[in-house]
Structure formats: C-alpha cells, structure tokens
C-alpha cells in the first residue's frame, strides 16, 4: 500500500500545483504510516524530480516518453493506472488542474474508486473512514465528503496547501515505461497554441493577480493593469463584460463562467463585484478593491479598499510597488 502523486512537468520545471500535490500526498502517507511515490510525466529535469524529497516524496517513477509532453488522456491514464497497480496505491493525489480533473474522473471508473475534486484541506482519517473537505457552491460553502471506495482519489485545489520544503532528503528517480503504442495517442492534439505572456505570469498558477473591469473605460487603458502586474510579479485578469467586449481575451475572464482562481492576493480595479464575478475569486486569500463608487458590492467581500479614480490611484500603486 502506498500513496501515489501525479507530478506534471512544464518547460523542465515541476508545476507549483504539483509541488502542492506532493506535499499533500506525503502528509497523507505519514498519517497512513506508508510512503509517497510520485509518477512524473512531461518535460522535466531529473534533478528537479530528485528534489521532490523536500516535499516528502521518497521515490519518483519517471516516464520520459516525449510523446507525453502534450496531455493525451488515454496515454496518461495507462501510465498512471500501471504505476498505481505496481505501487498498490490506495490513495492517488492530483492537482485540480484541467489535467487532474480529466484524469481523476476516468481513473475513478477504471479503478472502481472514490473521487473528490476541488479539495481544500488534508483528509481526516479515522479507522477506515477517509473524509476530505471540498469547495462547493462556487466558493460559498464547503462539504465534508467520505470517500467510501477502496481506492481514494483526491484532486487538490490550487493554492490551498502549503508546499513543504524540509520533509525529507533526496527522492530516488526510477525510469518507468508501460510501452505505449500509437493507438494511445490517437487523440493527441493537432496543434497547441500557448498564450503570449510577454514574460509575465500564467493566470491559473499566479500567486498575485491584478484584474480590471469596465471602470477602466477601454482596452487602451490596460497599461495600468499591466504595469501594476509587472511591478508585483502578478498575472492579469478581467471581468466578464471586458472579455465580452473583446477588450481582453476570454482566457483572462475570471468569474462564474470564466476561470476560478484562488491567489494569495487579488486586486480588482474598476470591477463592481457582481455575484457572478465573486464566484470566480472569492477564495482568494486577500482581496483589494479599487472603485470610484463607495457603494460597489465588492467592498463587502474585500480586505482592503480604496474609493476613488483608478486613473489617479493606480499610478501611485505602481510607483510604490516599483519602490519595493
């Protein structure tokens, strides 16, 4: 019996969300009196994998098949299911990324297991019962869920688990291969288009996000958002009306029907805070709202607020941030 963690590589490094999953997995392993093994897929350096020891991983199985650099569900599933069987994994940990959720649900059927996604805390384990807390109702509530299946699969919400940095030494790295055939890659993407981040930070992984709404009056004023983001090392985002009017691309839209984020710091400029917008950002740890309307509903959900003209306030923030 062991705990298996999926580790995703990207451009040679391990994704931050995977370091969180590894930290989660090794703490579960400790509680169960067993060890945590990682299955690593994607473009990643072996030295980075060995360093997973710091998160408490003892062994890494590494499939370095270059065809796995793009996500192909069927191929990934075969690799993970084989690793789970070799390690007799009773608990499997993913990060709740688009990849983790896609794999978790198929694997739950394949292994006849129980799945919880969007999990925000370590499990409560008592005898045979294994209970996790997950976010429900778009951030407005939590549910405690018992995973009753023999195999328990947990997809951990991003930025909800602290990354351990001294949980162990160096992890051993073993090559792992399941002999994938071309048929396993039948649904490989024809084309992958990455966003131009301009050297900036990707929104779903960002710890700090600067977001703009209609209050900015037009796309020509977005340098305010971008300059503040650059000064803080933040990603940029926007509200739904902004992406609907094509001021900004759809992938920047956070909210009920956009993407959900939970950064450490969310700075909203000229966004009134409609409930649909809050649903996408309400689990951010600290929320700053800048709006000229003192009655804007967003202030009720904020930790810090400034009432006033964004065109006067944001340059002052940029100046102060650059001076840090």
């Amino acid at each position, binding site marked *: 019996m062991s705990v298996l963690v999926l580790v995703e590589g990207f451009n040679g490094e391990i994704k931050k969300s995977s370091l969180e999953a590894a930290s989660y997995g090794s703490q579960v392993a400790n509680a169960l009196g067993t060890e945590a093994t990682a299955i690593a897929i994607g473009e990643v350096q072996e030295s980075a994998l060995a360093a997973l020891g710091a998160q408490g991983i003892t062994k890494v199985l590494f499939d370095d098949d270059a065809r796995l650099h*793009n996500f192909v569900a*069927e191929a990934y599933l075969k690799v993970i299911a084989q690793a789970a069987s070799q390690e007799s994994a009773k608990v499997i940990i993913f990060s709740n990324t688009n*990849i983790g*959720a*896609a*794999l*978790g*649900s*198929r694997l*739950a*059927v394949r292994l*006849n297991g*129980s799945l919880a*996604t*969007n999990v925000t805390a370590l499990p409560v384990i008592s005898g045979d019962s294994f209970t996790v807390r*997950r*976010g*429900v*109702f*778009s*951030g*407005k*509530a*939590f*549910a*405690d869920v*018992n*995973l*009753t*299946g023999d195999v328990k699969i947990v997809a951990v919400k991003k930025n909800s688990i602290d990354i351990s940095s001294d949980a162990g030494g160096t992890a051993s790295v073993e090559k792992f291969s399941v002999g994938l055939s071309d048929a396993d890659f039948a*649904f490989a*993407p*024809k*084309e*992958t*288009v*990455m966003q131009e981040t301009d050297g900036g930070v*990707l929104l*779903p*992984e960002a710890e*700090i996000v600067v977001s703009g709404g209609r209050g900015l009056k037009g796309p020509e004023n977005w340098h305010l958002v971008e300059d503040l983001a650059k000064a*803080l090392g933040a990603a940029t985002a926007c509200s739904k009306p902004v992406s609907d009017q094509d001021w900004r691309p759809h*992938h920047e*839209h956070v909210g*009920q*029907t956009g993407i959900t984020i939970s950064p450490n*710091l969310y700075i909203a400029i000229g966004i009134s805070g409609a409930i649909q917008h809050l649903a996408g950002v309400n*689990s951010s*740890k600290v929320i700053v709202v800048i709006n000229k309307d003192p009655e804007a509903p967003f202030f009720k959900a*904020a*930790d*810090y607020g*400034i*009432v*006033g003209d964004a065109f006067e306030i944001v340059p*002052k*923030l940029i*100046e*102060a941030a650059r001076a*840090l």
Partner: protein
Amino acid sequence: MKILVCISNVPDTTSKINFTGDGKSFDKNGVQFVINPWDEYALTRAIELKEAKGGTVTVLNVGEADTEANIRKALAIGADDAIRVNAFPKDAMFVAQQIAAIAKENSYDLILMGKESIDFNGSQVHGMVGELLGIPVIFPAFKLDMIDDTTARLEREIEGGKEVLEVKLPFVASAQQPMSEPRIPNMRGIMTARTKPLKVVEPTGEGAQTEYASFSKPEKKSGVRMIDAENAGELISLLRNEAKVL
C-alpha cells in the same frame, strides 16, 4: 446527428446558500433553481449544430420531479425531447452511471454537458461517462465544429494556452464559454415545449462512491479596511507588512 445534452438543476447564482439545521443537506427553501449555466453553453451549441446539420437534441436530467420545470425550459429553448432519470443525484458516479445507461440504449453521436455544475463544482461526470462508454472526452472545450459528418474539430483550454483537436464521433465534450451564446426561450418555444415528449425512467447501477457528511460556510471576512485615495501608496506597505502577501 443524434445529440444528448445532460443538464443539471442548480440554485441560481444569486441564491443565498443555506443548509438544514444539522448541516447535512442543502436547504431548498426560497431558492430558485436554474439550468446549470455551463450546461446552457452545451445546450445552445447542440441546437446550433442541429439547425445547421439536421438531427435531434435530447436533454437528460438525473433528478426528482421538481427538476421538470427546467427540463421544459430546455425544450422551450429548442431541444426535441427529454428524459428524466427519477432519482436524487447522489454523487457524480451515480449520475454518470445513469447517463451511460441511457447512452448505451440510444447510441448518440455526441454527448454534451457543461464543464462543471455551479453547485457541486465537481467536473467529474463527463470523464466518468466517457470512461463508462469507452469513448474520448474533450474537457473543457470552448469551440466545437463539425468538419464533416463523422469528425469534429474542437478547441480545448489548457493551462496557459489551447489545443486544437480533431475527434471522430462518438465522443463526450464538456462545454465552457464561449462555445455558444445561451438563448432565452421565445413564446413559440414555450408553447411547443408543453407537448414535447418527456420520458421518466427509473435509475439503474450500483450507486455512489462518496457520501456527503456535512456542509459548512467559510468564515466571514472581518471587514474591509479603507485606505484614503490620497495615500494610495500606503496600500502596498500594508500588503507587505500587515497582510504579508507581497
């Protein structure tokens, strides 16, 4: 083309969320239910494909009788017929088993649903349905077009970009914005929806793999600290020294 669209009956986005006194179940009192907004993207895209290429759109809901108002709404928007599996949707695995059973009986070319429901936020059912049927799942798809009668071209969101895929029917796709522009039913749609077939079937399958033990709400924020616009720069030092997020 035979399209199945799975819809979920969820509390309206603006609803106040409350639980029963023991914290064990959701309190439906005074809550208005709507079609899950993500499922609406799937539904309208299905109707658009039908209008362009011909075929049928069937909507499927796993739920008790009180979901029929929203099933009728889906028919009013333009679906041809509907199936309700008469059961409380215990968990994603249970719902996926019901959908897979209906799909096996009727062999649809395309199964669409939203990328998640706004109540349980699981993002699980589409993957489970695909696995139970042994067909591909495209999650989350924000563009779906038919290249010819058997192959679709989809665009899927990945962290930091997008992928373009070509996939042969049948498959499952989970929709997200901007796959389509959801429609409001017109008067003619509402009238015809009353007479469109809505079949009620009983559930099958082994059941759930999870148990919802209790619900709770996040702690309330202690209140907003306002900073004078004249000294806006002070915010940055508060974020560093007090909130410790910089």
